[in-house]
């Protein structure tokens, strides 16, 4: 009797865990963990119809490759996931695939796969991506993994499917960082790009802002107020160790890594005015970059290393400028409107995401095509902040407010696909990790 009750409760726990884990975590006295929940709004005009056949029935739903792959593809907004239940029996081997079943569903692509236990408690995960129209194979791979790697492997498979069918690099294996505020506590978190596995990096009662990933993804620079003033730290995500990068008199903030990871641009009020400096990643070699009596802040290195973009009010209102990293004359970049701040460059150097205050007073995420100067407003919310590009340049994560609560939102760079992350608590300051490929 004990064992049957236990089985029922255990499987209930398994299916509910992703959703309810964060509710239960709220009642624990220690650092709170919560999963991000994602809602998709809008989709691309033309979505690729794809069927993902279940790989297995026996795995914990939170680690089920089929569920994870389908959710990844759906979340990108570029795919329409088809119901596979009508096909019987469902194929697991290539030889079992009957293409007419799938053309009948108007599928363009089909994914079949298996999860098989192997020696030593390990698993073999294999899949095939098939082109339904051409009746040919686009990809087939096998992974020998520990069960704890099932989620990560499923994201890798989704990346391959995405890349084969769209020609673009997938970002399902990437991570995001963000700050969550609950009551008087703030925590700097890292989670998978789908919001799962949130891990705290820093926690306390003082504010944390401006997290920035090193280009190799192994470190986070951030600003913490734990010393009762803004100080820049660099923390290794592999060892957990951290160092103070800059604690000069006054404020130390807005760290931004150079593309080769050897330097950072930072903002100090040391001189009496808020100005941009560069510094070596080991904290040596502080050099002023901008000068003058106005505010210069929010530096961002362009991915090609040629420019540092920044926010300045040297022209009388906050606008975006750029300057060579070695110093020199600054060029103005934004010309529309009276408030343009928070520049971020796309990985291909062609597009700049930023925050603009429109005529109605709303702060909104926008992009500017650098070659043409063309500006497109991407959001419909009113208090946007902190845009960050995904490493494939296609998506932008940012913070905004819904019903006066801080939430994270993702929008495609062309504005067509939107996702909203909801959280228990006030979330802000997101940054997308570099690619792990």
């Amino acid at each position, binding site marked *: 009797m004990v064992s049957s009750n236990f089985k029922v*409760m*255990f499987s209930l726990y398994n299916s509910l865990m992703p959703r309810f884990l964060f509710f239960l975590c709220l009642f624990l006295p220690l650092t709170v963990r919560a999963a991000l929940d994602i809602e998709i709004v809008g989709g691309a005009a033309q979505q690729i119809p794809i069927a993902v056949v279940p790989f297995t029935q026996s795995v914990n739903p939170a680690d089920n490759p089929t569920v994870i792959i389908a959710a990844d593809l759906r979340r990108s907004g570029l795919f329409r996931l088809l119901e596979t239940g009508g096909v019987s029996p469902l194929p697991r081997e290539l030889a079992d695939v009957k293409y007419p079943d799938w053309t009948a569903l108007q599928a363009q692509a089909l994914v079949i796969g298996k999860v098989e236990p192997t020696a030593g408690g390990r698993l073999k995960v294999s899949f095939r991506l098939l082109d339904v129209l051409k009746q040919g194979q686009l990809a087939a791979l096998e992974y020998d993994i520990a069960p704890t790697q099932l989620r990560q492997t499923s994201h890798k498979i989704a990346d391959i499917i995405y890349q084969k069918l769209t020609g673009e690099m997938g970002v399902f294996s990437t991570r995001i960082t963000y700050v969550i505020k609950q009551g008087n506590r703030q925590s700097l978190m890292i989670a998978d790009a789908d919001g799962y596995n949130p891990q705290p990096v820093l*926690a306390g009662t003082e504010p944390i802002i401006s997290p920035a990933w090193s280009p190799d993804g192994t470190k986070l620079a951030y600003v*913490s107020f734990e010393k009762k003033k803004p100080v820049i730290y660099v923390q290794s995500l592999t060892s957990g160790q951290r160092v103070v990068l800059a604690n000069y008199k006054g404020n130390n903030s*807005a760290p931004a890594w150079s593309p080769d990871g050897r330097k950072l641009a930072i*903002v100090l009020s040391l001189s009496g005015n808020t100005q941009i400096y560069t510094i070596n990643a080991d904290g040596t070699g502080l050099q002023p970059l901008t000068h003058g009596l106005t*505010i210069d802040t*929010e530096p961002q290195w362009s991915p090609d290393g040629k420019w540092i973009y920044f926010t300045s009010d040297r022209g009388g209102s906050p606008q975006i400028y750029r300057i060579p990293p070695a110093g020199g004359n600054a060029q103005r970049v934004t010309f529309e409107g009276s408030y343009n701040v928070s520049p971020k460059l796309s990985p291909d150097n062609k597009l700049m995401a930023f925050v603009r205050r429109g005529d109605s007073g709303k702060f909104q995420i926008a992009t500017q095509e650098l070659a043409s100067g063309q500006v497109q407003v991407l959001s419909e919310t009113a208090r946007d*902040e902190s845009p960050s590009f995904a490493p494939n340049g296609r998506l932008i994560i940012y913070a905004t407010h819904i019903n006066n609560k801080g939430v994270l939102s993702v929008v495609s760079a062309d504005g067509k696909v939107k996702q909203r992350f909801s959280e228990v608590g006030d979330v802000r300051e997101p940054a997308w990790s570099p690619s792990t490929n």
Partner: protein
Amino acid sequence: MNKKFAISVIMSLFLAACASKPIEEPKAPTTDNSPPAATAPAPASSSSDSSSSSSTTSADSNAAPKAELNPLKDPNNILSTRSIFFDYDKDEVKSEYRALVEAHAKYLVAHPNAKLVLQGNADDRGSREYNLALGQRRSVAVRKVLNALGASDTQIETISYGKEKQRCSDQTEACWAQNRRVDIVYEGE
């Protein structure tokens, strides 16, 4: 009994899943709690305060030294007022705060060991880093008035909290006005 067993198993699984090891911010080092005034020569300095309540209180005090009222904390003393508010998009110290800033300048001059931090703040509209810089403009503006009144920079630090220390969160002018401010915090507080 079966149910209790199952529930306790589930609770322990949740607890295990919720465990994590982040860096917990160390508490900011606090200097000793006695205010700077306690170490300064008493009667002569308190005459520079606009109220004489401190000397009266110390005369009345019982054996316990903490009955002596620190002018910085005395609600009847202008020195216990610590916030200066600013107009939208401005960093000028308005004339209505002149007496307040003067009192703090005089206190610093009379207590060479006293140190304070000017914490600049901005309302919550716009980018965090730009607002950090706006808050800094305000703390620097207060510092300049203190300097003009004789206070030394060795006793003053200017920093900004930007929009990270909001006193309210309504999207109204009344709330934004409360957050455009500089807070004066003495060392040891």
